[in-house]
């Protein structure tokens, strides 16, 4: 089959690789009908996530048709249409039973690697480094889905692929980012990063009853998209974000801040950007936390900072004094997607939201390298690339 392989920094190739076959009795093999490139795939593409290996098949947002099931999968049968959540979760361990699927205790065979960097190991993730399991991803024609009796959600009506594909990651991720803010009526929410996850965080915050949402980015087309869903916007190249947020909130600061940016944030001042970029180059820190620092500093006293942008390791100059003295709550997680599949599918079916609004480019799987390139370089107003095998 064809699979999108990581071949090194800034290099992906669609190559011929073996077809997947079951390795465990709870596996299913899925023929992929739609898949997408995630902003977090760019962290792999740009070489910021450790333990990638040449030839790894990428992709953790995918859906398709079941073609084969292992002997212990009784809820799915060939022909079923499924969306597959990006974290792999067993459903039986204590974490899964408490709904913490992205920290499943059994699904990462390389837990020992992750423990060295992270202290304890999170769940395995499709196509997202060996530290997170060494599982091939879904930017391919077929994928093996472990614990198929737990993760995938069956789509039984005629909702088109493009409306349900993002249940695999970015819609639940944005939703959970907003959920972690404990939104109550009247709240003002600020969202750093108006990429696809940021867009879903904005939409979710409104659905949860936020009074106002403020989106912060540097690409006008992304800010326009956020405006179209009702957000106010700040272009951080033009304004001092802390100042502007104080002005917009009567001096209080936003009630909650969502970091939908992660390790590869930017800063308008070359000196400030250069400082962290240089430290990253000499491996003195792994992540550039500009958005996170600013979110903490901006948040109102007693507010919440919710982190859904991906971080890989260590950050520097973390404003701990601001967090501690101002009673700020910091929360973060890889999304526990399995928890949100059913309720968010119901929202889509009810017409509360049509997730396909973020799609800007539709391409063939064979064009994945071009997709990565335009998404990385924000060419052609690229917001979200969907691939069809």
């Amino acid at each position: 089959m064809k699979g999108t392989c990581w071949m090194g920094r800034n290099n992906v190739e669609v190559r011929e690789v073996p077809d997947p076959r079951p390795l465990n009795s709870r596996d299913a093999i899925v023929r992929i009908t739609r898949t997408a490139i995630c902003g977090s795939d760019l962290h792999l593409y740009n070489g910021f996530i450790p333990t990638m290996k040449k030839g790894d098949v990428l992709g953790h947002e995918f859906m398709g048709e079941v073609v084969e099931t292992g002997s212990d999968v009784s809820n799915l049968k060939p022909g079923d249409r499924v969306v597959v959540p990006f974290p792999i979760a067993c459903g039986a361990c204590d974490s899964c039973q408490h709904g913490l699927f992205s920290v499943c205790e059994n699904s990462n065979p390389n837990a020992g690697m992750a423990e060295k960097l992270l202290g304890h190991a999170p769940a395995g993730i499709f196509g997202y480094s060996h530290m997170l399991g060494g599982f091939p991803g879904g930017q391919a024609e077929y994928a093996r889905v472990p614990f198929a009796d737990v993760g995938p959600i069956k789509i039984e009506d005629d909702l088109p692929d493009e409306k349900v594909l993002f249940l695999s990651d970015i819609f639940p991720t944005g939703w959970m980012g907003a959920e972690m803010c404990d939104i109550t009526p009247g709240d003002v929410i600020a969202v750093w990063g108006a990429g696809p996850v940021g867009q879903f965080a904005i939409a979710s915050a409104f659905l949860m009853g936020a009074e106002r949402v403020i989106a912060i980015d540097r690409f006008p087309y992304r800010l326009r998209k956020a405006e179209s869903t009702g957000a106010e916007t700040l272009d951080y190249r033009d304004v001092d974000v802390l100042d502007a947020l104080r002005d917009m909130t009567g001096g209080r600061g936003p009630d909650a801040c969502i970091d939908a940016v992660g390790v590869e944030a930017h800063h308008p001042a070359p000196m400030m950007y250069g400082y962290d970029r240089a430290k990253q180059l000499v491996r003195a820190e792994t992540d550039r936390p500009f958005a996170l620092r600013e979110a903490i500093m901006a948040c109102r006293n007693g507010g919440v900072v919710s982190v859904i942008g991906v971080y890989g390791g260590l950050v520097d100059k973390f404003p701990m004094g601001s967090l501690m003295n101002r009673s700020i709550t910091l929360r973060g997680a890889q999304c526990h997607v399995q928890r949100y599949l059913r309720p968010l599918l119901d929202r889509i079916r009810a017409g509360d939201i049509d997730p396909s609004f973020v799609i800007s480019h539709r391409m063939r799987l064979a064009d994945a390298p071009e997709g990565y390139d335009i998404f990385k370089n924000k060419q052609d107003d690229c917001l979200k690339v969907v691939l069809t095998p």
Partner: protein
Amino acid sequence: MEEETRGDVMNDHRLRTLARGLGWASLGLGAVQLGAPNTVRRVGGVDDSTVARVMVPLVGARELLHTAALLGSRLPERWVWTRVAGDAVDLTALGCAVSRRRGARRRRAMAATAAVAAITALDVYIAARGDRRLWRRGLALHAAITVKRPRGEVYGFWRDLENLPRFMIHLESVRVIDQRRSHWTVRGPVGRAIEWDAAIVDDRPEELITWRSTDGALHNTGTVRFVDAPGGRGTEVHVELRCEPPGGVVGAAFARLIGEHPDQQVRDDLRRFKQVMETGEVVRSEGSPEGVHAIRQLRQRPAQPMMSGRRS
């Protein structure tokens, strides 16, 4: 027994303080050799040598490496041998210097040699004590994991020793001979089969199993304890092992070198045990097709499907 343990800990702290002291000494020496090489050459009686002009700052730089190792490590006693190796180089160089000189220079070189010899003696003493300590406890392994299953079930699965190869990846087989005795076969670090007999010496249902090898190639004893995890989270499994690997100390060092770190092995075994108990089987990925495995973590397959040919 307890008294002895406390004494050991005290000695560990003292040993570590001594080893760190050597690290600070290296820092002082290195700084002087780099900062005032001419004074060092004069004191050492080698101010007439062009070789020493290059050598003294190099030795100073090497001293700073010792400092980094000794002050950067949580277990500095393991790094003292690097100083001993350095001492050997220094003594050789000084020996050459002494044999080629006469008069005052020769006397100064001999004094320097004596000083380095004294330092060497101290280094060897601390390094050797560190080693003894390391080997005395080096192969006592321990690990723990929490399994979300009732204590009786977890104990029962483990007590049926023939289940062990399902999650202990190095075990080829365990054959139960009778209630107490069993025969074990493992695949060793270089693929050689190792066999031994073991006997259960203490067995308290749902609580503890202790075993001991009675005959064969690998002397080992071990205890596994089963404790209720707080908050209804299942059962805590605590394993303690003591073993003398084939090849003794050298064998163990070799095994470490090729990635078979014994502590890691025990932890991996417990992870697989948890997977088998909670999900029914060992979880595999294309990067780690055998499931959790220390060696595989060093040498991953690419995350790519494994066999060619179309699916049926």
